[in-house]
């Protein structure tokens, strides 16, 4: 039988995540919106409350809580700040390839400090040649004796200015791709420009510049030629799952602020919640939120069981982000003119929702993955 209930422990984790979101993150959201900078307190708080240790097993200093727990955390953080949840989801994404493909030495070297939040991780795959076509990668890694020399430029990398450890996808031959663990401070490693996005203000996104970057051979993840497997496994499961988790929190926030406003706004002597036209929008949001939760938590539960779930994650990522974007538009509409004023969060939801759509693969790419599986 199917169990549609969170465990008591998972409910408590949700509560802990909500406390973090409301006590630590919420007070800093206005500043993030205004300055588009990442507050240090948020990153510190993530480490202190063990938000970075969720997916790392206890033998490497983590909590081993798994992916359902991870989605719970992302949902709760995104409910308050999608920008913060996005940074968190990519910290997890950066940890993932080391966890799955790292050698014992690599795991021992990196994971404990990542679990404690003393160091932070990210993944750099996308280049200006197109995120949808990773094999167009131009960043090159050349073997020179006992080390590789990397040259190239990555774009749109989340947490690039924050992360100490970066899993980087490179070309090592005409049709050969290889992934390396790079570290801040390596010769020739330099985060570049900071991107200003329409939404997710305060979430770090930017360039990574590799200028004759010297990387020891032992920093390779997997074997030469494993690059696509290593990079895509993380993005297809952990990355899509993370974005779906962010979108879940956004949907929840849309529903909460819409119902609050609809109950408080009086027109024709009654709250607008009494108007059927408003109720239809609310009903749409409520049912989409439930469907979104089912898709996302099911895929996460499959992941926890060690089952292949890339298609399920694509379904979740596609459905939830698109539903969140529609819900954010409806939330603005329900707020009338207030929906476009900075004093209300509705406009932030709309801007944040659009940023989720291309992240970790566009809706077109998701539908290609889904259709390929359906047509098999």
């Amino acid at each position: 039988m199917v169990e549609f209930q969170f465990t008591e422990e998972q409910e408590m984790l949700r509560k802990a995540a909500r406390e973090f979101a409301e006590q630590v993150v919420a007070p800093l959201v206005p500043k993030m919106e205004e300055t588009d900078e990442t507050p240090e307190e948020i990153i510190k708080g993530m480490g202190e409350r063990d938000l970075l240790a969720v997916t790392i097993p206890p033998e490497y200093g983590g909590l081993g809580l798994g992916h359902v727990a991870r989605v719970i955390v992302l949902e709760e953080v995104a409910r308050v700040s999608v920008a913060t949840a996005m940074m968190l989801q990519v910290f997890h994404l950066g940890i993932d390839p080391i966890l799955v493909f790292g050698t014992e030495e690599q795991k021992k070297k990196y994971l404990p400090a990542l679990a404690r939040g003393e160091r932070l991780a990210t993944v750099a795959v996308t280049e200006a040649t197109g995120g949808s076509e990773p094999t167009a990668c131009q960043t090159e890694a050349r073997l020179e004796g006992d080390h590789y020399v990397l040259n190239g430029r990555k774009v749109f990398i989340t947490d690039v200015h924050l992360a100490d450890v970066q899993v980087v996808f490179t070309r090592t031959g005409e049709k050969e791709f290889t992934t390396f663990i790079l570290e801040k401070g390596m010769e020739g490693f330099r985060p570049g420009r900071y991107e200003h996005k329409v939404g997710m203000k305060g979430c770090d996104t930017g360039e990574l510049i590799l200028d004759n970057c010297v990387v020891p051979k032992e920093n390779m993840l997997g074997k030469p030629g494993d690059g696509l497997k290593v990079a895509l496994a993380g993005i297809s499961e952990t990355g899509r799952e993370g974005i779906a988790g962010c979108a879940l929190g956004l949907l929840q926030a849309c529903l909460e602020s819409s119902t609050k406003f609809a109950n408080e706004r009086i027109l024709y002597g009654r709250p607008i919640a009494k108007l059927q036209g408003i109720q239809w929008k609310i009903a749409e949001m409520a049912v989409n939120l439930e469907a979104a939760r089912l898709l996302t938590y099911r895929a996460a539960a499959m992941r926890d069981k060690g089952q292949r779930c890339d298609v399920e994650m694509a379904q979740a990522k596609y459905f939830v982000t698109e539903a969140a974007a529609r819900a954010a538009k409806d939330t603005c509409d329900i707020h009338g003119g207030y929906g476009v004023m900075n004093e209300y969060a509705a406009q932030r939801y709309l801007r944040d929702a659009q940023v989720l759509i291309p992240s970790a693969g566009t809706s077109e790419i998701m539908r290609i993955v889904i259709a390929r599986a359906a047509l098999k």
Partner: protein
Amino acid sequence: MQILVLVKAVPDPERANEITLDPETGTVKREGIPLVINPLDRNAVEEALRLKEEKGGTVAALSMGPPAAEGPLREALALGVDRAVLLSDRAMAGADTLATARVLAAGARYLGDFDLILCGAESFDGGTAQVGPELAQFLGLPHASYVTSAREKGGLLEVEAKVEDGRKKLQVRLPALLTVSRELNRPRGLSFSGIVRARGKKVEVLSLADLGMDPSRAGVAGSPTIIGDISTPTTTRSGEIIKGDPEEVVDVLVKKLTEAGVV
């Protein structure tokens, strides 16, 4: 230092607007609202944990409540208390502050000797601020209420506490009971590692029989308080514009505020 901290399960203050009153039965209806640790009790737990970290010892959490109060006690375990005990029995229901304090006193005695008992100055739902002092009385302990700072020095506690129009400083000999204000500290958040560490720990549940207590001294039966009436206050707002030159206006305003008892 052996510390006991009282933890009351109250309806989530975030959802206070869902609480309604039943004027027929004179009771508060809070079905379906999740229970949380009473906010000021979080300050009490924090102080207990801080003292333990500083001086060693153990912290036990004690609550009287329905079976659902286990949830908030599990949270106390996740925050770091060593032991959590729930006094729960049908015959404990409907207790006023006197019967509550009497049952808590029996629970405290059952658990052993403590150097310090801490609790929130008042509960978010009942808000009488009576249970702490009553418990101290039952246990024959000195107490201080609305404590804003506390420092232990050779068996004496140097305490600052809020009083109506200021603060007072006192020395309290241990063992003692303190009821705490929110200014005392900033409660730590629930951490994931705390939740994982508390996995093996269980909330112990004790009945009146376990405490060896006569049911007539607990719950409704043991409560002399009779609720005469219960109602939701209606608030009305009115605006008034005071006109005149600034000095006159200020005089009128001060007079009005004084009459209203605001200043």
